[in-house]
C-alpha cells in the first residue's frame, strides 16, 4: 500500500510540475509585456522598466522559471499584478463560493441522474427509456454557456429565481467561514440562507445538467450489463423480485463505474465553473480566472490554472482510492501491480 501511495504521489508531483511548466511556457510565449500590464494603462517607459525590475521580469527566463518553481514548492503562487494581493489569498477568498457551487451541482447531479438511470434501465426498450436516452444525448451535447444563457433568459422575465450574484443586496452576512450558506446559518439568518440557496439553483442546474446526462447513460449501461450477469439471473431464479435484483444486487456493482465517472465529473465541474460563474456573475475561482484573463493578469492566470490542476489531480487520486475501497478486484490488481 505504501509503495502504491508513494508511486501515486510521485506521479501527482510530476503532473503538477508538468502543468506548471506548460502554463509558464505558454504565458511567456503569448505576446505581451507583463511589466506594462503591472505598471498600469498609462505608465511611462520609466515606470514600466522599474516595474519589470521589481517583479524580476528582467531576469533571464531560466532564472525566472527556477524562481517560479521555488515559490511554487513553498505554496506561493505569486502576487497578482492587478490587485497586488497574494494569489493564494485571493483564491482562498473565492474558493468557498466555488465549493458551494460544485457541491450543489454534484448533489443535484447524483439525486437526479441516479434515479433516472435506474428508471431507464428498469424500463429498457420502453418509451421512458427511449425519451431518456434521447434527452441525455441532447443535454450532454449542449454547450454549457448556451444552457446558462437560455436558462437565464427564460427565468429572468418571471423573476422566479435570481439570475446573478450569490446573495441579494438586502442581506449582509458576516464572513466567518467564507461559505455564505454556512455563514448565513451561523448568523441565524434563515431568510439570507434561503436567498443564498435560491442564488445557487440556476448555476447548479446548468453545471449539473451535462454531467448528469453522462451519469444517466453510464449507470443505465452498467445496470443493463449487470442484469445479464449470472449472479443476477441466479438471484431472480431464487425468487428475488425484479426490483430487488436491480436495487440490491445489480446497482451495487453498477455503482463502481458510476462512482468513478462522478469523481471525474468534479474536474469537469471545476473547469465548467469558469463559464458558469462568469455568466451568473457569481464569485469563485472561475470568475476570478475569467477576470484575470480579461485583465491580462498573467500571474493570477498562472496561479489559478495550477490551483485548478492540483485540485483535479487530487480528486482523481481520491476517486482511485474510493474505487479500490468499493471494488476488491481493483484493489488486488492495483496493489499487485504496485508490488
Amino acid at each position, binding site marked *: 500500500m505504501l509503495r502504491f501511495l508513494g508511486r501515486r504521489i510521485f506521479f501527482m508531483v510530476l503532473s503538477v510540475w508538468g502543468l506548471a511548466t506548460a502554463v509558464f511556457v505558454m504565458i511567456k510565449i503569448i*505576446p*505581451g*509585456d507583463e511589466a*506594462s500590464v503591472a*505598471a*498600469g*494603462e498609462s*505608465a*511611462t*517607459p520609466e*515606470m514600466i522598466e522599474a516595474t519589470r525590475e521589481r517583479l524580476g521580469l528582467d531576469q533571464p527566463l531560466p532564472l525566472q522559471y527556477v524562481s517560479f518553481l521555488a515559490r511554487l514548492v513553498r505554496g506561493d503562487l505569486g502576487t497578482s499584478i*492587478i*490587485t*497586488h*494581493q497574494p494569489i493564494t489569498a485571493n483564491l482562498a*477568498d*473565492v474558493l468557498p463560493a466555488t465549493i458551494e457551487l460544485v457541491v450543489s451541482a454534484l448533489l443535484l447531479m447524483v439525486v*437526479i441522474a*441516479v434515479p*433516472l438511470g*435506474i*428508471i431507464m434501465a428498469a424500463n*429498457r426498450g*420502453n418509451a*421512458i427509456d427511449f425519451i431518456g436516452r434521447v434527452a441525455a444525448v441532447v443535454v450532454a451535447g449542449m454547450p454549457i454557456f448556451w444552457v446558462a444563457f437560455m436558462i*437565464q*433568459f427564460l427565468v*429572468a422575465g418571471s*423573476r*422566479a*429565481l*435570481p*439570475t*446573478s*450574484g*450569490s446573495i*441579494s*443586496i*438586502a442581506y*449582509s452576512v458576516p464572513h466567518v467561514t467564507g461559505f455564505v450558506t454556512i455563514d448565513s446559518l451561523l448568523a441565524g439568518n434563515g431568510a439570507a440562507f*434561503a436567498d443564498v*440557496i*435560491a*442564488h445557487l439553483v440556476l448555476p447548479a442546474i446548468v453545471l449539473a445538467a451535462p454531467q448528469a446526462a453522462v451519469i444517466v447513460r453510464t449507470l443505465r449501461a452498467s445496470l443493463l450489463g449487470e*442484469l445479464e450477469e449470472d449472479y443476477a*439471473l441466479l438471484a431472480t431464479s431464487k425468487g428475488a423480485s*425484479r426490483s*430487488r435484483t*436491480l*436495487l440490491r444486487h445489480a446497482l451495487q456493482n453498477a455503482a463502481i463505474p458510476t462512482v468513478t465517472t462522478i469523481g471525474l465529473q468534479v474536474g469537469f465541474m471545476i473547469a465548467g465553473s469558469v463559464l458558469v460563474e*462568469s*455568466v451568473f*456573475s*457569481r*464569485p469563485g475561482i472561475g*470568475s476570478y480566472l475569467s*477576470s484575470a484573463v*480579461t*485583465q*491580462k493578469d498573467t500571474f493570477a492566470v498562472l496561479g489559478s490554472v495550477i490551483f485548478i490542476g492540483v485540485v483535479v489531480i487530487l480528486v482523481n487520486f481520491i476517486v482511485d482510492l474510493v474505487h479500490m475501497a468499493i471494488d476488491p478486484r481493483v484493489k488486488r490488481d492495483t496493489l499487485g501491480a504496485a508490488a
Partner: protein
Amino acid sequence: MHPHPTRVTALTGLALAAALVLSGCAPSSPGPAEDTPTTFVAQTSLNTLDPLLSDTIQNDVVDDLLYDSILDYDDNAQIVPRIATEWTVADDALSIDLTLRDDVVFSDGTPLTAADVVYSLDRIATAGIGAASFLTDYASATAVDDTHVTITLARPNTTFLGALSKIYVVNSAVVEQNVGTDNAQAWLAANAAGSGPYILQDYTQATSVKMSLNADYWAYDADRPDTYVLEAFEESAGISTALRGGSLNLGTLPATDAATFENNPDYVVTDLPSGSGSFVFFNTKSGPTADPKVREAIELAYDYDGHVKTILGGKGTVASSVLPDILGCDIDMPDKKQNVKKAKELLAEAGAENLTLTLMYQPTLPEHNAAATLLQSNLRDIGITLNLQTTTFPAYNDALKSIATTPDLAIANDRARYPDPFVMLNRQFNSAFVEKGSNRGQYSNPEVDEILAEAQVTPDAADRCSLYQKLEEVVAADHAVMPLANAELTYVSSANVEGVQFSPVRLVFDPLSIRVQ
C-alpha cells in the same frame, strides 16, 4: 432478464420528486423587502479598490465613491474644487499651492488634513505604478499647516493641476497601520480608507462591491442611493438578463442589444460619449507610410460615414480632429469625405502604386475588427493590398518599442485620462516618446515638440488652448495620424434611475450624479 419496472419507477420517481422539491425550496421572490432603502446596482468590471490604480477607468469609478480626489472636473471639463477649494500655480510653473476644506472626515471619523494629502501623493509617487503616470513631474509636497499644501514640481508644468483630479486622498494613519512591505497595496485592494460619499460595506474579489451612503460626508446628499453596488459582468447577454431580471439598474450594452429595450417603458436607453477616439496610426518613420502623400491617400480612401453608420450603428461621430470633442480645443476641420480619385492621384504622385501594407488590430474589439475589414476593402479600391494582422494590446505595445517592428498601420483607441488635451497630444506626438510605446506613429517634428514645451509653461488655459490648436493644424498637415470616429456608449437603465450622464473625468457615466426614485 428485466425487473418489473413499476416498483422501481415508483421508488425512484419519489426520490426524483424529493430532489426537485429540495432544489426549489428557495423563496419564489429573491428580492429584498419592500421597505428596503433605495439601492442602485451598476455593471462594471472590478480590479482593486486601491486608489493607487485610479488610472484604470473601472477603478476610478469605485474610488470616486469611496474617496475624495484633490480636485475635480465639472460637466464642461473645467477644473472645480473637491478637497482643495483654492489653488495657485506659481508663475514659474514649478509649484502649486492648495487650500483644503477643513470639514472633511474619513469614514472612521478622523479629520482629513494636509498631511493626508502629502502622504497620498508620496505613496503614489513611491509605488511608481498606476496613478504615478499622472505625477511624472512631481518632486515633493509639504503640509504648510492642516489646510495648506505646497506641491513642488521637478520641471515647469502648468498642466499638472488636472492630474490632481485622479489623486485620491487616503487616511494616512489607517494606511500606515497596514502598510506592510507593499505600500499597503494588498490591504487597500480589498479595504477602504477614504472620505468619499460612500462607505465600503462588502467587497468580493473581482465580482462585486457594496457601499452604503456616508451620512457624515461633507457634501452629503440624501437623494443619492442608500446602497450603491458595482457588479462585474463578463458577457453582454448576462447584463441584458440581469437588467430584465431586475437585479441590475444600469449597464452598457452593444447597440443591437440595447435596441431591444428601446420601446420598453420600464427602461431608459441613453447614449453617452465614450471619451475615446479610434485612430489609424501610421508608421511615419519607416516603410511606404513614411511618405505623407501615401498617408493622405489612405485617409482619403476611407469611408468615414460608413464607419459611423454601419460599424457604430449610428452611435458616434466622424472624428474631425485628433482630439475627441469632449476635450475642447479641437480645430474646425472640414468634414472628412471619401475621395478615391484624389487618393489614387496622390499615390501616383508619390510613385507608390500597387503597394502592399500591413495593418495590426485587436480582433476582440468589434469596432476595430470591422474597421480593419472596411479599410482593407477601401484600400483595394486605390490599388493597395492590405494584409490584416491580429494582435493583443500588450503585443502591440511591444511592437512599438522599435521603429522596425512598428506596423505600417494599426488601429487603436486613445483617450485622455483627464480632460486636458495636453495628455493626449504629448503622448501621441512628442518625439521624446518615439520607440517608447506611447508615440504610436513614431512621429517627430521639432515644431510640435516646441509647441508642447511652450504649452507646459503657459499658465493661461486659453493661451494653452491656442497652442493645442496650432499643434493640431501641424499634425493634420503632416497626416501624422488618421482619426476615425468618436464612438458613443449605450447605457440601459431601469426607469427609476435618473442622472445617467457623462463624466469627462471618469470617462463613463458620472457615478455621483445617479439618483433612484
